[in-house]
């Protein structure tokens, strides 16, 4: 159902790879400033949906429509969507030779009227500026450090819609509070947050949860109910082996 205060509306999206529908007739409406989790097992189509929303090359839907703040963005590229206010924190951020962490974070301040303080956001994500900002974005950084840099980059962008793809992946148990801090910061700034996850603990931070299965929205509702459904149904499902 499309509500008037919806920031993002996905209508009957389908993405095919050969004969197979990765995303299948998927519809979703996200109200402003809500935290929404899309819960699903590996291979359910969660990350593909994140890429479709961001407009990543190779992820243009075969069918359906994407509306952001009333604008049809289905044919817009990722950089155009970013400038409209959509940001994605990647599940695995790539390494960049010759680019410092500061250079990388600064990119999120370009082409925007409003953005967060670089050093504050880095610190919030556990990245001590004196220790991290002049380091190279290379493979000497651990996966967890790169993940925190990716989250800091998202906070700096101060997006209207923040898509976090598996925000806790690569982050150790001790640092998991970082993800909570990131979500709280975004909520406080007025962002709408879409969490892509298979982690029930992360999903429990949401206002609402959707269950994705084989690329379609199987169920949707209050976190407690959907998480229970996920535990009882998906964890025993044989679809994905």
């Amino acid at each position: 159902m499309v509500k008037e205060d919806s920031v993002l509306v996905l209508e009957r999206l389908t993405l095919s790879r050969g004969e197979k529908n990765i995303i299948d007739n998927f519809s979703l409406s996200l109200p402003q400033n809500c935290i929404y989790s899309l819960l699903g097992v590996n291979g359910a189509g969660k990350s593909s949906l994140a890429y479709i929303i961001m407009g990543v090359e190779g992820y243009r839907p075969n069918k359906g429509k994407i509306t952001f703040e009333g604008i049809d963005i289905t044919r817009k590229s990722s950089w155009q969507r970013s400038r409209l206010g959509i940001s994605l924190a990647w599940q695995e951020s790539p390494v960049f030779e010759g680019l410092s962490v500061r250079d990388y974070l600064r990119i999120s301040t370009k082409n925007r009227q409003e953005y967060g303080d670089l050093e504050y956001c880095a610190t919030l994500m556990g990245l001590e500026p004196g220790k991290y900002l002049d380091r190279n974005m290379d493979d000497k950084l651990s996966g967890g450090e790169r993940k925190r840099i990716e989250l800091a980059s998202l906070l700096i962008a101060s997006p209207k819609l923040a898509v976090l793809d598996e925000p806790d992946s690569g982050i150790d148990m001790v640092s998991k509070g970082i993800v909570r801090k990131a979500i709280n910061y975004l909520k406080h700034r007025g962002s709408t947050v879409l969490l892509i996850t298979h982690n029930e603990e992360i999903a429990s931070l949401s206002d609402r949860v959707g269950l994705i299965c084989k690329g379609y929205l199987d169920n949707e509702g209050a976190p407690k109910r959907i998480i229970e459904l996920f535990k009882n149904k998906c964890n025993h499902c044989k679809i994905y082996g």
Partner: protein
Amino acid sequence: MDKYHQQLLSAYKQAGGNLDVFKDIDMAHLMVHGNEVCSSRTIPGLQMQAKSTSEGVDLKFLMKSSFKYDAPLNVCFGLIPQDGIQKINLEGIVEDDAGIKILAFCIFPNAANITHLMKAKVRVGDNSYFDYQENHYHGTNGGVSLVPKLDIEVGKNSRFSSQFVLTKGRAGKVDIQYAVDVNEESSADLSAKIYGSGSDNIKINESIDLRGRGSRGLLKSRVVVGEQAISEVINKVIARKANCMGHIDCIETIMDSATASAYPSLKVYDSLARVTHEAAVGRLDSKQLNALMAKGLNKEQAIEVLIKGLLK
């Protein structure tokens, strides 16, 4: 000061050089336009002779034992006219227990048909070092043919490092031929960063011969070519004695219709020596491009960021 000298100073500044070094009486420098030595200054411990020839300059330098000069020695070779030839013959000696750093700019801002030939032979003594950085600017026409040949012998417990940078404007035809012999417990570290476009033709042929026990060598190349440019990188490391360690690290990135090839060559004569290599030739990483575009950079801006990073 003639008009070419003035224009060369101006181009030197635009290429990133610091004009103050030519005024500072405590800093050594050498400025050559074509076959004319425009100005030079030396400092205690450094002997330098520059003699004009019909098509360039014969240059000799000697860094005397127990003297070290890190300031560095600032060198500028260039030609302001569109056409011409510049031949530089260099003989250098860094004596035992001595060291020198040289920062060279080779500037041909208006080149349409310029040939720059550099033939250098340098001997670095024991317990000594020679660090050489060479920055190039060849204008935007692709009209330079550049052939730098460097033969270096590094003594015991010493080091040689070289950085060749040609990342702005057009490259033209580039044929780098560097060969370094490294003796016991010494090191050689050679890096080249080049951007080519149009019909530029870039060839890097570098070799390190690790002759002494415990000697080390690194050959690092970063080349980005676009349009119809061609790049070929031949890196060779020979390890002859125990505990020699060598590594080749080559990344060539192609865009448009450009082509690139890499030929790493490794030869080891001692079972206690080790030489490794990594070479990658291909297009810009789509993951990196997507990540930058999702942060609001359009494709051209994202490519620029990635190229700058690769050549940084």
